[in-house]
């Protein structure tokens, strides 16, 4: 790595920090990309297309909220994609079996919290690396789902089940839930002691303990919330579908992790916001859609996603190292 001399006075760095926050950059990218692609192909900017992008990917943004919390606390979870598949099937099956709609909606939330909190407890109290626990859980959920349902489709969902078809004052429900969940989570994480504990745990667990934060309890809480958001994401996802395929959406966990990381959540823990991850989820969805409009094969989407996450991770680590070096120099 060649050292790039730090030019510009402290004042300009302060300026940059204020205006070049990850969130602002992402918002700029979301708008800039829309304008650029619209220039090449104006149909991209059609209301129908923009709405599709938002509606079709709101659940990823919602799941990325929980994932962001998990990563900020210094952990990782790769079982969330499989969990969403399982929860969607449970929810759909309940609805078809004639359970009250409220039950079909609430059971996935409770189940999501339960599964994730259990994983969090194993990670926090038995000190097993999160990757091992969630990799194991991924296969248990995935294999369990297919072997129980045989991969058959759930059809004839009752009319009332489709929560995602509702709207609030003309705003579609998935967008409402996405915005509300992001806002609530952002405020909670920024403005409450329990929310700040996540950052303290991921940033410096030892120092957190000395400040009266219980890192283990925090990790369990974070995983439980991650489960809650996974349940919420499932609701938005499953109630949009006319047919629920009882398999796990492949690669979903990677899309969710990408949204968190590209949204500015530091993969080493301790930093990031859910506003960033939501914007990043929208940006990734936008890129996927844009590829179609500029005639690039959609099969390149995943490579692009992979490149994006890799570049963000490397940039994050180099940036942190520079900053640490600067701290020593001055």
């Amino acid at each position, binding site marked *: 790595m060649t050292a790039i001399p730090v030019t510009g006075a402290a004042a300009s760095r302060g300026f940059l920090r204020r205006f070049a926050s990850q969130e602002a950059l992402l918002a700029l990218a979301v708008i800039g990309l829309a304008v650029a692609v619209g220039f090449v192909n104006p149909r991209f900017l059609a209301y129908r297309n923009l709405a599709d992008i938002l509606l079709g990917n709101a659940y990823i943004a919602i799941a990325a909220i929980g994932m962001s919390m998990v990563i900020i606390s210094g952990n990782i979870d790769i079982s969330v994609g499989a969990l969403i598949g399982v929860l969607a099937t449970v929810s759909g099956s309940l609805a078809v079996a004639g359970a009250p709609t409220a039950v079909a909606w609430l059971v996935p939330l409770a189940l999501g919290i339960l599964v994730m909190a259990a994983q969090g407890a194993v990670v926090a109290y038995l000190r097993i690396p999160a990757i091992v626990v969630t990799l194991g859980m991924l296969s248990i959920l995935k294999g369990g789902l297919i072997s129980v349902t045989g991969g058959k489709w759930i059809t004839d969902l009752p009319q009332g089940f489709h929560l995602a078809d509702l709207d609030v004052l003309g705003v579609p429900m998935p967008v409402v839930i996405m915005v509300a969940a992001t806002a609530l989570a952002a405020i909670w994480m920024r*403005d409450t*002691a329990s929310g*700040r504990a996540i*950052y303290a745990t991921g940033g*410096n667990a030892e*120092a*957190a303990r000395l400040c009266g934060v219980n890192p283990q309890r925090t990790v369990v809480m974070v995983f439980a919330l991650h489960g809650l958001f996974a349940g919420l994401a499932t609701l938005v996802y499953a109630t949009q579908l006319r047919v629920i395929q009882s398999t796990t959406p492949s690669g979903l966990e990677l899309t969710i992790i990408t949204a968190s990381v590209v949204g500015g959540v530091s993969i080493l823990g301790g*930093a990031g916001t859910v506003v960033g991850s939501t914007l990043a989820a929208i940006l990734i969805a936008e890129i996927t859609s844009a590829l179609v409009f500029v005639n690039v094969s959609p099969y390149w989407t995943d490579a692009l996603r992979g490149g994006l996450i890799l570049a963000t991770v490397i940039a994050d680590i180099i940036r942190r190292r520079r*900053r640490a070096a600067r701290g020593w120099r001055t």
Partner: protein
Amino acid sequence: MNAPLLDVRNLEKTFPGVRALTGVSFDVRAGEVHALLGENGAGKSTLIKVVSGVYQPDGGEILIDGRASRFTSPEDAKRAGVATIYQELLLFPELTVAENIFLGHAPRAGFGRIDWRAVRTKAEALLASLEIDDLAAGQIVGSLSVGHRQRVEILRALSHDARILIMDEPTAALTEADVTRLFGIVRRLKGRGVGIVYISHRLDELFEIADRVTVLRDGAYVGSRRMADTNSAELVQMMVGRRIENLFPKTLVPIGAPVLEAQNLVCHPMTRGVSLTVRSGEIVGLAGLVGSGRSELAQVLFGITPAERGEIRLQGEAVRIDSPEAARSRGIAYVPEDRAVQGLVRPMSVLNNFSLAALGALSRFGFIDRAAERRMAEAGVKRFSVKTSSVDEAAGRLSGGNQQKIVLGKWLANSPKLLVLDEPTRGVDVGAKAEIHRLMGDLAADGVAILMISSELPEVLGMSDRVLVMREGRLVAEFDRAHATSEAVGGAMMGGGANRERAA
């Protein structure tokens, strides 16, 4: 007069096998800076850990405002108004200054929400009260300089209404300008009636900032003085005592040609232009305080952090040492300071630790000759009289002295020309210490050039043909054996002391 803020009486603390503190007493009054002075291992860290509730004392008592107090946790101590600022600052790099100050006890608004406005204004008020104007409450701590980070720690302590502030070597990593500012802050705190326990090796600083000083040696109380009534010579004398007679002095051997010649070595941030020569058969002692850049210099010589500038010659030939592998192949060996982290692979057997640095010589086409490896380890165990049930025992299970002998032994297997020893006898019992010293003498007699870093002044004085003194990344003094007295070397280590001596 009122009772002292903090009064420590006859404190005792024993760890398995070690008496860390015996009969230590001192007190701190409001508005006073009381310094603790002593060599490494003198018991200062144990003492402050007892006072700040990390350890529980085995005997003696701690009085706060004249009332006996027992702290069972750091929280307890914090509630009683005792705050400690450790050398390794415990901050959250990704959070802001204000948040770091108030983490865990932030002002609340309704619904349990943190009142960010109050956090900010309170942080700003604290900053203003210490007249810190170049630090903003909203700055991210990770991007701050060490001096600023320390100020954040001090503010955090003040946010807890600390009345007794313990500062553990607060200037060890600071620049001159930051030290001046720290002293400004300390004086302001004194003015407010805060009592300060100040730990530092730098005598000149103590004369500037402290009111009284208590000296510890080997975990025992040596004495207390008012700074106005003492001088650096007396303090150095109290610190090091007279213990040189227990050591094996080095036998005189003919000193040969230079093995190591280093010219103007620079490696950011702690090696700032060092030139030195070590000759065959010579033991050069490298003295200096913790944080003076001694270990950093050793790691430059050994290629762990290669020199950015400067020249290294080995036996007259200019060489590039850009990795430990390069250093080893040139005949340099380094016995590091931190045995547990840098020296040993503790879960590995004695056998495998012994051969770790000599695997190349023990193998053919990459295959380890296991019989030869075992022979070598068994010979080593015998030669260094390592006490172990077998060479297959995990190295981490042995005592400190035996572990150190293994680290030393694994490097001697390479028959080095230059041996760099970093605190070779730290945490080692007296018997093992004598054996290590005898071994050093034997090696020197065989023509090995030895550079020995040690914080123990008697060891440096007893073993060295020549003593170099390092301070703030530079060599600042050199003494030959005849002129290396504890006062002279100690004075040069402390900085101001030497100047005082010369001025007197």
